[in-house]
């Protein structure tokens, strides 16, 4: 193999307006190695790799591919130099088949010729890697793991020898993720240079030859295989963050009863006879890999959709039961429901509207901020200021600014403040700390544990098993639209993991 480094980046800088995404970032990758880039969300890992793949042009610094300094003009240029990137959000045209997608990136002669030739090449690579790929189905109908394989083969057909994978295991089950990483190691053994962008310590320790830790847009350290997870974690995070401890719970009466929920509306994930109960003062965690019905369940529980059949019942203080199976958000709210959806931008906030309005909307209908013929903004502003202070929301120059200007963590704090200001009895929380840095994450967890102390029944749906394990009193595992197993707080991680992949 060549003695030159496959990829070398030094002193890379990149700004987006006033936001500094990369500030003196560097990286070197050898041929035949699996090199991991570890860091929290927002550390700059993806940005740095986008520079290497020709999608961003750096404001400063040096990029060398196979020993040659270069100033990439675009993704095509990078591809020509054997750099291929597999993004977190696949760049696939869902309506096209695998062959068409690969052909799109690798044009060959006439259309018919191209299809045939590409088909042959795909099969060649697939066999070498031990994949089984349906070439002619629209990729939108393939599973996520299969789509990822198409992405990988796309780069291999283009002749990539430096492969960059951005958070590849984020959307896979533990088992699929392991399989993928074994394949990648295989490719490295045969001489390719692999860059693995991830925030998962376990993947780093099992598969990486070396790891570069990034934080705040710069490179902190590069370490060899065998470094302890503690050391890696501290480097990635900067300081030790103490995770809030879950004390012993005092669960009370049943608050939320879900029986035989059935939902046919989505092709990918149907809900089948979902049944569970949650008591007041308890956190019921629903674990599982994304795409197994969690979003549908969250939507139905929060009332934005009605199930095809089944019951959702709330038990009011005093014992009365209310059937809330129809999809009516207003009724849920009236009976003490609150919800924090996973898709914050799309469902929890209106980015172009002010912070005040985004908070006030939870209470406007009660008349607290004026009668129907007049909305009293001053009163709303006051209430919002108090709430912002209590929730420690940072980055607010003025409460009248657009909520879209808040960072993810602060926006989430605002959403939670709003939902809790309703004094709910039941709250549905879906992936609350996704995309948040460790500090914000800890704040969110603290809030949830407080709610638990106050007697709220919490349904926590999350793909982050660590989050589930640290917060939940009871855990339900969701696979293929069904709760396949339930565990209590002492549930063994392995057993849970098995349940997550066991029933398909």
């Amino acid at each position, binding site marked *: 193999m060549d003695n030159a480094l496959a990829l070398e980046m030094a002193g890379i800088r990149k700004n987006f307006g006033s936001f500094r995404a990369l500030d003196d970032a560097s990286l070197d990758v050898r041929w035949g190695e699996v090199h991991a880039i570890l860091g929290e969300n927002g550390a700059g890992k993806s940005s740095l790799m986008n520079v290497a793949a020709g999608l961003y042009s750096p404001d400063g610094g040096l990029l060398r591919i196979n020993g040659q300094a270069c100033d990439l003009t*675009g*993704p095509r240029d990078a591809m020509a130099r054997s750099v291929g990137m597999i993004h977190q959000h696949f760049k696939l045209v869902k309506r096209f088949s695998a062959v068409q997608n690969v052909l*799109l990136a690798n044009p060959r002669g006439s*259309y018919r010729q191209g299809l045939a030739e590409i088909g042959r090449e795909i099969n060649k690579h697939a066999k070498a890697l031990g994949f089984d790929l349906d070439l002619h189905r629209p990729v939108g109908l393939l599973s996520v793991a299969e789509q990822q394989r198409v992405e990988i083969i796309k780069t291999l057909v283009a002749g990539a020898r430096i492969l960059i994978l951005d958070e590849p295991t984020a959307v896979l089950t533990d088992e699929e993720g392991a399989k993928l990483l074994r394949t990648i190691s295989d490719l490295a053994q045969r001489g390719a240079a692999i860059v693995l962008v991830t925030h998962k310590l376990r993947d780093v320790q099992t598969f990486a030859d070396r790891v570069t830790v990034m934080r705040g847009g710069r490179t902190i350290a590069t370490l060899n295989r065998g470094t302890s997870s503690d050391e890696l974690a501290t480097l990635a995070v900067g300081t030790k963050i103490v995770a809030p401890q879950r004390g012993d719970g005092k669960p009370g009466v049943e608050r939320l009863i879900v029986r035989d929920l059935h939902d046919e509306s989505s092709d990918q994930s149907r809900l089948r006879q979902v049944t569970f109960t949650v008591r007041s003062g308890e956190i019921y965690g629903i674990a599982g890999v994304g795409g197994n019905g969690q979003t549908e369940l969250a939507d139905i529980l929060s009332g934005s959709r009605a199930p095809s059949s089944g019951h959702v019942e709330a038990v009011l203080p005093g014992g009365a039961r209310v059937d809330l199976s129809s999809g009516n958000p207003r009724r849920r709210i009236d009976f003490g429901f609150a919800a924090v959806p996973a898709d914050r931008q799309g469902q929890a906030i209106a980015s172009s509207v002010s912070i005040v309005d985004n908070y006030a909307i939870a209470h406007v209908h009660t008349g607290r901020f004026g009668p129907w013929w007049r909305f009293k903004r001053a009163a709303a502003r006051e209430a919002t200021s108090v709430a912002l202070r209590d929730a420690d929301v940072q980055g607010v120059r003025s409460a009248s600014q657009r909520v879209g200007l808040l960072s993810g963590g602060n926006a989430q704090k605002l959403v939670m403040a709003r939902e809790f200001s309703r004094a709910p009895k039941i709250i549905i929380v879906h992936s609350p700390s996704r995309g948040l840095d460790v500090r914000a994450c800890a704040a969110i967890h603290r809030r949830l544990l407080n709610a638990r102390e106050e007697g709220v029944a919490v349904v926590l749906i999350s793909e982050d098993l660590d989050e589930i394990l640290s917060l939940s009193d009871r855990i339900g595992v969701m696979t293929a639209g069904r709760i396949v197993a339930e565990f209590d707080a002492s549930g063994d991680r392995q057993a849970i993991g098995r349940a997550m992949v066991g029933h398909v």
Partner: protein
Amino acid sequence: MNDFLVTWIASIPALALPYALASVGLIVSERAGVLSLGAEGLMLVGALAGVGAYLTTDGSAFVAIVASMVAAGLVSVLFAVLVVWLRVNQVIAGLALVFFCQGLTNLVGTLADWSNRAIPGIAELNFGFLSDLPVVGPILFRHDVLIYLLVPVCFSVHYFLSSTTYGLKLKAVGENPDAADAAGINVSRVRFWAVVAGALLVGSAGGYLSVVSAKIWVAGMTSGRGWIAVALVIFARWKPVQALAGAILFGAVEALIPQLNAAGVKLPQYYLLMTPYVATFVVMIWQAFRERSDADGPASLGQPYIREERT
């Protein structure tokens, strides 16, 4: 009855052609993700340019049709600059384009004195004894050359979209410009040319309307056909051959009116003129029941594409 049917069916192709060409032109641009609401305006431009060229070149219908295509193509550049380069909202830009074209064609038509001047149009082809056959003769063998070109044109566009590499790229741009960009395709350039190419077809539809069908230019003569074509594209699920079928349907509806009048059926004149618009409603409603109507559209239709970087 027989006579009525024959004359009716024989008059359908000429009325269907403008709808067909306009729809196919729209399909080309919409498959690339650009919603082209300006079709009504581009048809007007094509119609005026056609008559104008005919009058200034002393009667060459060929030049007239080419002129209608070129004129519409040029005006569409304005639209393409607005929506592809300047990322203007495609609905606003489309509406503005229609009114721009309406104003412009009225102005030029009046000032250049091209309005209300009858022209002879194009001769119908003569296939000898075939044209004289009963029933089949008038229906199939007595049309002008452009009508005979219509079917090949529709099929060519279909072939282009489904079986060529460039067609694949164009569709990719319309479905997922992010993926197309990552594959190294210049999204802006593809969209730009899709708009202009589509405009050539839409302009020719207008040119046919004025030069061959009506044989005259009158302000506003397209009377909403451009809007109907937009609805037709949805009805045809963005497929050129289906658009042709839809155009024939509309041609049939439009052809019915004068035939009924000629047959002596007494119907309120203005309510009859409403039929194409009512038919469009019927088609849209039927389409909505058939399927979730926009489910088949190119996924990025109507959304400007902005890649964060690379400037």
